[in-house]
């Protein structure tokens, strides 16, 4: 950067900072944040005073016994299984629903009520659905799977019908002119055109569901969350923290696998090449 450019950037920066309109807006936002923080009881001093407690947790983590690793591993595996089953079941159910909910494929009398129903399933987080399903099917992973499935249906259906509505219209027009039936149009044009988005959405949903399933145990719906909440209840914070680290490791591993799958299938399908860094 030349000296002239540095001066020019500086001038622009101070010009922006000295603008009374900008300053008024920034001031208003800061005032709102301060008032709201006071209202909900934000206490920064309490945070700094409590920080040494983290040291106690860290010390307890070192006392974590090797026999607990088995429990952590198997409960995490159960969590991943629940998330996987819930995601797949949700996607399978949401695919036909998203076709009926797409405005460019269905009539208003079909898509409007269906969209309302799907919006209702998204209204509550999966933990609230889990409470409901624990009442219906009892304690255990099955209630959690049902909760994850229901939430996935609402979420994936929305993403899918939006993808379907946004697909390239040219192949649709070209194949309509050939005389394809609606079923053939969906099978050979709509689904393949929306498929790259679908794979991306499934990966995102699975990632999200693993994190959600990790806390479903809090309400007795199975998974690693059951152990975390119980350790917290009995003040065994070290064990709880170690189990949380297992969740973190699993989520990072799933994220890494997702990136690999995205690169291999989605980037290629959408752009005809692998993702490259911009120099």
């Amino acid at each position, binding site marked *: 950067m030349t000296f002239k450019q540095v001066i020019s950037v500086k001038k622009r920066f101070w010009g922006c900072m000295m603008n009374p309109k900008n300053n008024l807006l920034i001031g208003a936002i800061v005032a709102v944040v301060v008032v709201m923080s006071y209202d909900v009881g934000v206490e920064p001093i309490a945070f700094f005073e409590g920080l040494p407690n983290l040291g106690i947790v860290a010390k307890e983590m070192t006392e974590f016994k090797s026999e607990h690793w088995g429990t952590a591993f198997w409960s995490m595996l159960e969590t991943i299984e629940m998330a996987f089953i819930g995601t797949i079941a949700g996607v399978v159910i949401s695919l036909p629903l998203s076709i009926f909910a797409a405005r460019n494929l269905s009539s208003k009398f079909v898509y409007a009520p269906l969209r309302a129903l799907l919006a209702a399933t998204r209204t509550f987080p999966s933990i609230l659905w889990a409470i409901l399903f624990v009442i219906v099917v009892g304690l255990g992973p099955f209630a959690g799977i049902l909760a994850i499935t229901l939430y996935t249906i609402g979420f994936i259906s929305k993403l899918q019908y939006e993808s379907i509505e946004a697909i*390239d219209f*040219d*192949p*649709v*027009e*070209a*194949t*309509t*002119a*050939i*005389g*394809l*039936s609606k*079923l*053939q149009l969906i*099978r*050979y*044009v709509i689904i*393949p*055109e929306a*498929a*790259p988005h679908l794979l991306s959405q499934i990966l995102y949903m699975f990632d999200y569901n693993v994190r959600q399933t990790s806390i479903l145990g809090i309400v007795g719906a199975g998974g690693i969350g059951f152990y975390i909440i119980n350790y917290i209840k009995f003040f065994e914070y070290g064990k709880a923290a170690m189990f949380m680290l297992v969740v973190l490791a699993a989520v990072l591993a799933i994220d890494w696998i997702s990136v690999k799958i995205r690169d291999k299938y989605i980037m*290629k*399908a959408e752009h*005809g090449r692998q993702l490259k860094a911009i120099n």
Partner: protein
Amino acid sequence: MISSIFIAWLNSEFFISTLKKQDSSSSISTMSIVQMSGVSASYDSKDRVLKDVTLNIHRGTNYAIVGASGSGKSTLLKLMNGMMTPSNGVVLYNYQKPSLKNKEFKKSISKIGYIPQTLGLVKNMSVMDNIMIGALPRISGVKSFFKMFPEDEIKNAYDVLKLVGLNGKSKRKVYMLSGGEKRRVAIARALMQKPDILLADEIVSELDSVTAREVMDVIHDAQKKLNLTAVMIHHDMNLALEYANRVAVIKEGEKILEIGVEGEQIVDFQTGNFSQEEILGMYDES
């Protein structure tokens, strides 16, 4: 209002019966496949894209429509395959009014090979899957849903692949192909329809002259082998004169010239005979 609709309907029915009588007196090879009489069309109620266009396309003809961008050329094709209906005048394909609402016409729509300017290929699917789309109207819903294609259709597809010069590329995804290859896939899909007529909208406009001629040769060969009628939209008058045996020039929605190309001879059907240079000059002015 009702009387004017009735008169318009009466005129169109009279037009159909007259054309049928005219054609029955001539041989099958010269029978018209597309007829347009006094056709106007618009995308909104204000501006007319086409104004009073009359065309008659005979079977087996290679018919070119030439004109500047926005002159209404693509609209003409959309009127022929029923993607649009005229606001005035009569359009007939095989003596049927092309419209997606017309049940009789919908039965024959699979016989109209249509290649839009954008090609309309499904980019995430393989070349073979894209080509098989052309055969789908002949295959039952359940079989096509599970991709259980009849043996003869698969053989057809490989024959068409060979015809368009895409041998050995059947499993490639469309996004992996070059511009010229994509056009060949679109031609193959249209040929898989076993069409009576091929409508192609500026299929070579974005290609270099060598590739453009290669693609045009593919269509020309297929047309000869399958005895097809082709209606092709071009930007390049030279290319139109080289491949077509009849050329219509459209300017601002009106047909200003229709010429027949027979070897070196150019026969004008509207305003007298012109030399090739004069016609090219006329096109430049348009």
